[in-house]
C-alpha cells in the first residue's frame, strides 16, 4: 500500500518533466526529422529519402553559411569568455560582500529588455547618423560621418552583448564556491600569479566555463534577430536560411533539413570542443 503511494507520487512528480520533454522537445524533433526526409515531387506528391540532405551538400551557399555561422558563434563564445571571466571573477572573489548582489543585478538588468530593443539600441548608436558617428564628427575627430552598422563586426558586438550574461552567471556561481585558502596555498608554495591562475583558478572554474561556453555558443548559433538587424548585405546567418525556406520559399522540406543539420552540427561542434580541451560533460557540467 505504502509502496504504491510512493510510486504514484514519483510518477506524479515525474509527469510534468516527462510531458515537457516528450511533447515540447522529442515530438517536434521527430516531426522535423520526418519532414526533412520528404521530398516534394509535385503538388501534394511526396517521395521519401535523403535527397534534401544531398541537395544541402551540393549547394555551396548553404554549406558556407552554416560554416560561417559556426565560426562566428565560436568567436562570439571566445570573446564572451575572455570578457566575462574577469567580470565574473571580480564579482565572485574581489567585490565586497555587500556590493556583490548589486553588481550581479547590474549584469542581469539588460536581460529584462527584449533582444529586439537591445538590437535597436545598437542601431541608434552605430548608424551613420547615429550617436557615436555624430559625436565624433562634432568633436572634430573625423571629418565625415562613418557607417559602423551593417557589417560582421557589428553582428559580433551585438551577439557578445546579448550572450555574455549567460557566460557570467555560471562562472560567478562556480567561482563563488572556491575556497580562498586554495589561492593562498598556491602563492605560499611559490606559485606566480599566472601559475595560480592556470593551475588552480581555471581548473576549478572549468564546470562554469564549459557550461557557459555551451550555452553561449548555442544561443549565438541559434539567434535570429541580432544578425538580421545588425548584419549588412553580406551577413548571412543560418537561421535566416531556415526562415527563408519555411516562409518565403514555402519549402518546409528544406527548412526542416536545415533545422536538423543546425542541431547536429552545433552538437558536433560542442562535442569537438569538449574533446579538444580534454573535458567531458560528466566531469564538468554534471559534476556535483
Amino acid at each position, binding site marked *: 500500500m505504502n509502496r504504491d503511494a510512493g510510486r504514484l507520487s514519483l510518477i506524479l512528480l515525474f509527469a510534468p518533466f516527462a510531458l515537457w520533454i516528450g511533447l515540447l522537445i522529442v515530438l517536434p524533433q521527430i516531426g522535423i526529422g520526418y519532414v526533412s526526409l520528404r521530398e516534394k515531387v509535385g503538388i501534394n506528391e511526396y517521395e521519401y529519402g535523403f535527397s534534401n540532405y544531398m541537395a544541402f551538400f551540393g549547394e555551396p551557399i548553404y554549406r558556407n553559411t552554416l560554416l560561417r555561422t559556426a565560426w562566428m558563434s565560436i568567436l562570439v563564445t571566445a570573446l564572451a569568455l575572455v570578457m566575462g571571466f574577469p567580470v565574473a571573477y571580480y564579482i565572485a572573489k574581489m567585490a565586497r560582500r555587500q556590493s556583490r548582489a548589486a553588481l550581479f543585478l547590474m549584469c542581469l538588468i539588460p536581460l529584462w529588455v527584449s533582444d529586439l530593443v537591445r538590437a535597436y539600441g545598437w542601431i541608434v548608436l552605430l548608424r551613420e547618423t547615429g550617436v557615436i558617428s555624430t559625436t565624433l564628427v562634432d568633436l572634430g575627430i573625423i571629418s565625415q560621418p562613418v557607417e559602423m552598422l551593417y557589417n560582421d563586426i557589428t553582428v559580433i558586438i551585438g551577439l557578445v552583448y546579448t550572450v555574455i550574461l549567460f557566460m557570467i552567471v555560471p562562472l560567478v556561481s562556480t567561482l563563488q564556491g572556491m575556497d580562498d585558502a586554495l589561492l593562498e596555498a598556491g602563492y605560499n608554495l611559490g606559485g606566480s600569479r599566472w601559475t595560480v591562475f592556470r593551475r588552480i583558478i581555471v581548473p576549478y572554474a572549468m564546470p562554469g566555463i564549459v557550461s557557459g561556453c555551451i550555452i553561449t555558443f548555442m544561443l549565438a548559433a541559434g539567434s535570429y534577430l541580432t544578425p538580421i538587424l545588425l548584419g549588412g548585405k553580406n551577413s548571412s546567418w543560418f537561421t535566416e*536560411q531556415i526562415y527563408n525556406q519555411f516562409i518565403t520559399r514555402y519549402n518546409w522540406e528544406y527548412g526542416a533539413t536545415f533545422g536538423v543539420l543546425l542541431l547536429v552540427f552545433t552538437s558536433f561542434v560542442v562535442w569537438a570542443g569538449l574533446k579538444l580541451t580534454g573535458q567531458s560533460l560528466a566531469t564538468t557540467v554534471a559534476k556535483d
Partner: protein
Amino acid sequence: MKLGTKLLAATTMMVAASVTLAQAENLRILTWGSYAPEELVKKFEAENPDIKVEVTFSNNEEMIAKLRATGGTGYDLAQPSHDRIYAAQVEYNIYKPLDLSKINMDQLSPNLVEGVKANTTIDGEVYAVPHQWGTSGMMANVKEAPEAKSWLDLCNPEYKGRTSMRLRRTILLGMGFAMGMDPFALYEDKDAYQDMLDKVTAKLIECKDNIKTYWTGGDDLSALMLSGEVVLSETWDSTAFKLYGENQDIHFIPPETGALAWIDTFAIPRGGEADDAAYKWINFVTKPENVKIMSAATGALAAVPDAMSLLPDDKRAAVEAGFTEADMDNLKFFANIPPGIEDMEGLALERIKAASN
C-alpha cells in the same frame, strides 16, 4: 468524496464560463500592419457588441505559412495579395469560397473586383475580393537624386552607397522589367524564367557594392530615408506617401517600366469559424466613411469607387506628386504566381545575399 464534489463544481463552473465566452463571437483577422486601425476596430465593436475583434499583423509569406501549418484554421479572415492566392489554394487548400451575395459589391470598385476575380477563381468559385491596392516602385530624395527614373538607377554609381532595396521578389521582377524582359509573360515557361532570374541575379550581385544595405521593414526603410543615409530606394508607395508628410523632398517615383501594382484582398480561411462576422467586417470597412479612416492608416488606395477623393489631404498631395495619368496607365499588375516559381526566386535571392565582392 468532498474533493470529488469540489472538483465537479469547479469543472461545471469552467464549462459554464466557456459557454458564456462562446456567445460573444471572436473575429480573428490575419492582416497587414495598419490594416485594422484601432479606431475602426472600436467602431466596429460598438456597432456589433456581440463580436470581438482580434488582430494579428503579418505579411504575405507568413500568412500563407501560418494557414498552411494549421490547415486553414485559427483565423476567420485573411488579407493576402491577389497574386498569392491561386497557387496557395491549389497546393495547400487553405481558403473557402466566398459567398459574394453577402458582400455589398456596389461598395467596391468594379474593375478591381473583376481583376481579383480573374486571378482567384478556381473551379468557378471566387476566393477573394479586393480591399486596398497600391504599388511598388522607388522613392527618391528629389534634391539628391533628381534624375532617378529606372529600377537600374539603384545600381547607378552616381548614388554609390546611398541606395537600398528589400531583398524579396519585387526587386527581381522590377529589375527584370528594367532589363527589357517581361517576367509575368515568362511565368509559364520555367526555363525561360530561370534564364531571366540568372540575368537579374548577376546584375544584382554586380550592384551589391552600390547598395548601402537591404531594408527589411517599413520602419527600417523610413529611418534610412529620413536620416538621409539613403537617397534612392525600392519601396512600397504607401511608405513613400507617409514620408512625404515629413519631408516633401521624398517622392514616390514610378519606374519608367511601370510601377508594380498589388491588390490586398479579403479571403476567408478554410477553417474560419465566424464567416458572418467576417462578411460584416468586409462590408463595414468598405463603407465610404470608414474607408477614409482606413486609408489614413494604410496610406494605400481603397478598392472602392472614387478612392482618390477619400484619401486624407496630405496623402492625396503625395499621390499627386508621385503619379501622373500616364504612370497610372503604365501600372503592371502582379500576375498569378504559378506553383514552384517562388522556390526558384528564393534560391536567386539567397545567391544574391550570399555573394560577396
